[in-house]
């Protein structure tokens, strides 16, 4: 694994007994000695600490926040200009065909937009943003930690009481373990929690201080995936990609009215000629939640059919696993429009057998955000 990049916490993970695997060009902890199932359950019960330093942290600066926001709105179909200071929002880059290039989190940090993008896409994303007439700087001297779970607030507030005053999708600076950190109240688990951008040199000490709390355990990528899946959150490259538009990906909610037809800043982003009509007229396929009957997980690639025998394929599973908190298999998939209504029963073909699968509401576990 010598050609893999390492996060500032690499040696710390190894010391903790993590199993390291290659992920998006980085050596990352997939699990710790606790194991995927217990790590998952611990995060939902107490708090889990994740190293997500492989993700791209980018500062986008213009003459002022509004200038940077206006520039980004030419690539991203969401309301960035109207995002309040100290607030964060979900978004995505689109391509000319209306597909999604990557999804991301955007924050208004006063004089700039702070963008967090997926590790696997960050080089392309940064090059994409650099086509704009703004200053785009990748933050390479900071680690990114996520503290997720019902105990996250108490753990972080013990270090800086202002953590408790933050609401879901607030962003602010907190002093954690004596270090100024850029903190958002958000995450990728469906739990309340925080994402913490910390100077790389201070990252291990902060992680140690957080793990010193009896409620906090280190959590690997394995549990991160099952947690986000139960929370109904998309994984880029799996549940959505450059061939799927936001309406097909069931992400229309992320495109605010102001960017839609009739809005004050309608369109003006790549693929608007595909996406805006799709918002009005609908699409032929949609991303949905799926609950396989029985115990067998249906994983990525399992084909879906309308009937128990014969007939054409009407969709496929994009992410699937056993949901430790649901105690049953859960999945996300793409299905033909018309079969996407909650409660519709279809079939997934697993090892040559068609087994019942029901279209289900997302998330599979109730979101615990502190609104």
């Amino acid at each position, binding site marked *: 694994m010598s050609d893999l990049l390492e996060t500032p916490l690499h040696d710390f993970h190894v010391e903790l007994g993590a199993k390291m695997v290659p992920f998006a060009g980085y050596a990352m902890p997939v699990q710790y000695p606790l194991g995927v199932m217990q790590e998952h359950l611990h995060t939902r019960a107490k708090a889990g600490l994740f190293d997500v330093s492989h993700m791209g942290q980018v500062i986008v600066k213009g003459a002022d926040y509004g200038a940077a926001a206006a520039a980004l709105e030419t690539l991203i179909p969401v309301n960035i200009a109207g995002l309040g200071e100290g607030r964060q929002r979900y978004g995505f880059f689109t391509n000319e065909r209306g597909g999604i290039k990557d999804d991301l989190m955007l924050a208004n940090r006063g004089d700039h937009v702070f963008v967090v993008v997926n590790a696997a896409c960050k080089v392309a994303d940064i090059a994409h943003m650099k086509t704009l007439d703004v200053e785009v700087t990748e933050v390479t001297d900071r680690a990114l930690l996520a503290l997720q779970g019902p105990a996250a607030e108490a753990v972080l507030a013990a270090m800086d009481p202002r953590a408790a005053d933050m609401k879901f999708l607030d962003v602010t600076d907190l002093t954690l373990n004596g270090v100024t950190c850029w903190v958002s109240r958000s995450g990728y688990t469906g739990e309340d929690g925080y994402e913490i951008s910390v100077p790389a040199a201070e990252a291990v000490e902060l992680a140690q201080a957080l793990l010193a709390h009896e409620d906090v355990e280190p959590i690997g990528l*394995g549990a991160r995936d099952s947690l986000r899946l139960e929370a109904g959150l998309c994984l880029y490259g799996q549940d959505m990609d450059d061939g799927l538009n936001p309406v097909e990906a069931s992400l229309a909610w992320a495109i605010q009215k102001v960017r839609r037809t009739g809005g004050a800043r309608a369109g003006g982003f790549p693929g608007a000629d595909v996406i805006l009509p799709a918002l009005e007229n609908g699409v032929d396929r949609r991303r949905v939640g799926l609950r396989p009957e029985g*115990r067998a997980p249906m994983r990525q690639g399992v084909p879906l059919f309308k009937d128990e025998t014969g007939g054409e394929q009407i969709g496929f599973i994009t992410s699937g696993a056993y949901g430790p908190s649901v105690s049953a298999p859960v999945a996300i998939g793409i299905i033909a429009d018309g079969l996407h209504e909650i409660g519709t029963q279809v079939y997934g073909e697993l090892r040559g057998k068609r087994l019942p699968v029901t279209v289900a509401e997302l998330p599979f576990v109730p979101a615990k955000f502190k609104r």
Partner: protein
Amino acid sequence: MKFTEEHEWLRVEEDGVVVGITEHATTQLGDIVFVELPEVGTTVTKDEEIVVIESVKAASDIMAPIDGVIVEVNEALAEDPAMANEDPLGNGWFFKIEASDPSQMDEYMTEAAYLKLIA
């Protein structure tokens, strides 16, 4: 007890050979969440995939280690797949097979040889 390179164990009992997977295998697989067992009465051939195991990480198969007929399966394991993690050599057994050619057992390893293999 005999062991295969596929990390299965075989224990000869009066009415058949009990088969399960080793602790090394369950550790590698991680938490097991689903087990699909063959039907009792099925005639199986050596190296035929007859059990599906799903862990939190991935799906994998168990092959029939010998030719024979399945005479019993561990229904309790299908109900509670975690038993394979908790007690791989005991309550976590998978199936019992009546060997049609017991000499096929001879090629498999002793415990000492198996422990050497995974060391």
